């Protein structure tokens, strides 16, 4: 009997090893993993964590920008901002759908967010204090997101990769509209220029923190790189973003708030100052200026909408019954 169990376990072990080998070969050959394909549990849970965090970021990110829709200073600006925030909601939808292909429901993901078990990008825990912040978010926050997402277009999981291709197209429009606001304000009145610089000062460091901890402190990077979920490390992406953005700031006459920022001829990249990791971990762990506010807002909308969702379900049930 003992031997039988041993032999079954051995067979199972061999089978799993074989599956894992086939899976890794597929990844190494740059083939996409699809929802019905076999995948290691770790791969699935890593993806659920990453995609849902991304989806939640899109949704929570609607709040700081939504804060200025009713105060947008021109009809054109209002249309663009409204359309942009609507795009973010759409991105949230694609991503939740991609996540659902991994066997988790949107309700469960929502619950994880409300219970604080799932995170969203910490950048949205900073307040938007002037119209220039709409420029800074588009330019820097969407700009940072694009750097990350461009590399994720090649991620190994099919639904995530396809979602990213679609999202990237819209994000690059967002980045341009943000930069346009900043450029316009930087060349506007004295007050506008001050607002633009102030927004850059407040959003610069949180934006470069968006890429996450340094590679040496990022425990999950190993498997994510092996499974090609992640194609570049946090530090590579951060450097890429900084190198791209410095010239854009110079072009419109704004100053990046980092006295240590300096071009390094040898590396062909900018050296930059020390990131305040204490602030980063504080905001990640719930102590940012808007953490509570953002989550409460989301919970409130969800709770207040419950009777509406219930009514829709009850109505749909009656219709099926009547058919």
């Amino acid at each position, binding site marked *: 009997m003992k031997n039988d169990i041993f032999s079954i376990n051995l067979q199972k072990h061999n089978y799993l090893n074989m599956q894992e080998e086939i899976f890794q070969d597929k990844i190494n050959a740059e083939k996409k993993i699809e929802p019905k394909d076999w995948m290691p549990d770790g791969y699935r849970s890593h993806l659920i964590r990453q995609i849902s965090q991304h989806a939640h970021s899109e949704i929570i990110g609607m709040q700081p920008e939504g804060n200025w829709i009713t105060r947008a*200073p*021109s009809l054109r600006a209002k*249309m663009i901002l409204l359309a942009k925030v*609507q795009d973010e*909601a759409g991105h949230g939808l694609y991503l939740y759908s991609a996540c659902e292909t991994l066997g988790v429901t949107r309700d469960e993901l929502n619950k994880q967010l409300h219970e604080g078990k799932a995170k969203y990008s910490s950048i949205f825990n900073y307040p938007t204090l002037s119209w220039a912040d709409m420029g800074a978010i588009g330019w820097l926050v969407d700009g940072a997101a694009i750097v990350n997402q461009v590399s994720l277009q090649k991620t190994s999981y099919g639904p995530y990769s396809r979602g990213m291709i679609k999202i990237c197209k819209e994000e690059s429009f967002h980045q341009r509209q943000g930069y346009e606001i900043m450029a316009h304000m930087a060349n506007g009145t004295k007050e*506008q220029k001050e607002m633009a610089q102030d927004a850059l000062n407040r959003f610069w460091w949180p934006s470069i923190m968006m890429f996450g901890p340094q590679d040496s402190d990022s425990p999950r990077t190993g498997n994510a790189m092996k499974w090609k979920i992640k194609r570049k490390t946090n530090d590579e992406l951060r450097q890429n973003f900084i190198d791209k953005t410095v010239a854009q700031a110079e072009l419109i006459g704004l100053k990046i708030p980092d006295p240590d920022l300096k071009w390094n001829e040898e590396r062909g990249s900018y050296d930059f100052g020390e990131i305040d990791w204490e602030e980063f971990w504080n905001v990640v762990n719930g102590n940012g200026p808007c953490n509570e506010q953002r989550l409460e807002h*989301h919970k409130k909308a969800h709770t207040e909408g419950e*009777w*509406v969702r219930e009514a829709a379900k009850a*109505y749909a049930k009656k219709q099926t019954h009547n058919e």
Partner: protein
Amino acid sequence: MQDLEKYILRIADSSLILSHRLSEWCSKGPSLEEDIALSNISLDLLGQANSLLEYCGKINGTKTADDLAFKRGEREFFNFQICEQENGHFGDTIARQFLFDSFTLLFFKKLSESKDEILSAIALKSIKEINYHLRHSSNWVLRLGDGTATSKEKIQNSFNKIWKYTGEFFEMDQLDLKMLDLKIGVNNNQLKKEWDIIVNDTLKKAKLNRPEDGFMMTGSKNGIHTELLGKILSEMQYIPRAYPDAKW
């Protein structure tokens, strides 16, 4: 102000103010899909307002669409009072939207026959959008009316509360009569019958009672509003008013 200018402002302002109200829903919808839908409708209305205000600016010759949206005071706005009413809960928003959509669909259909080619073109484009808006709001009236006991009670109350703002849809003053005479404007009064049919039919299907046509609010044609409009404008116009020399 020219008559045509004022006539167009009345139409534009309703779209603009209701768009503002709907945009307040952003990130607060009962579901992600509804959040997107309400933003979409808000955007359509904003687009309509923009086209109408641009046309108005051309007639005026000295003002841009932005000047008209952001530099006029409360008494110079002519939107229907129903458009400025608060969003309340989702049912309140849907009741307001359904009544407005069913009116504007009929109104823009008639306006598309206007002798004024620009107004007619704007109306034609808008009809396509409003058809979707009405389908969206009617479907929600059905879901909420014939959904659960709670939703039924809520949306019935929403209709009861908002009903007194529907009288303005069908008013005709001297300016309207003049525009009608010139074959530019619409006879709003004549739209009532058809509006009643659409509204009664949907409410019946939703198992809701149509409120009585009792006391009706009035005044927007002369720039008289509820206290809510001033608050909308102080928020909407804050930046251009605070920084009058800046361009955005």
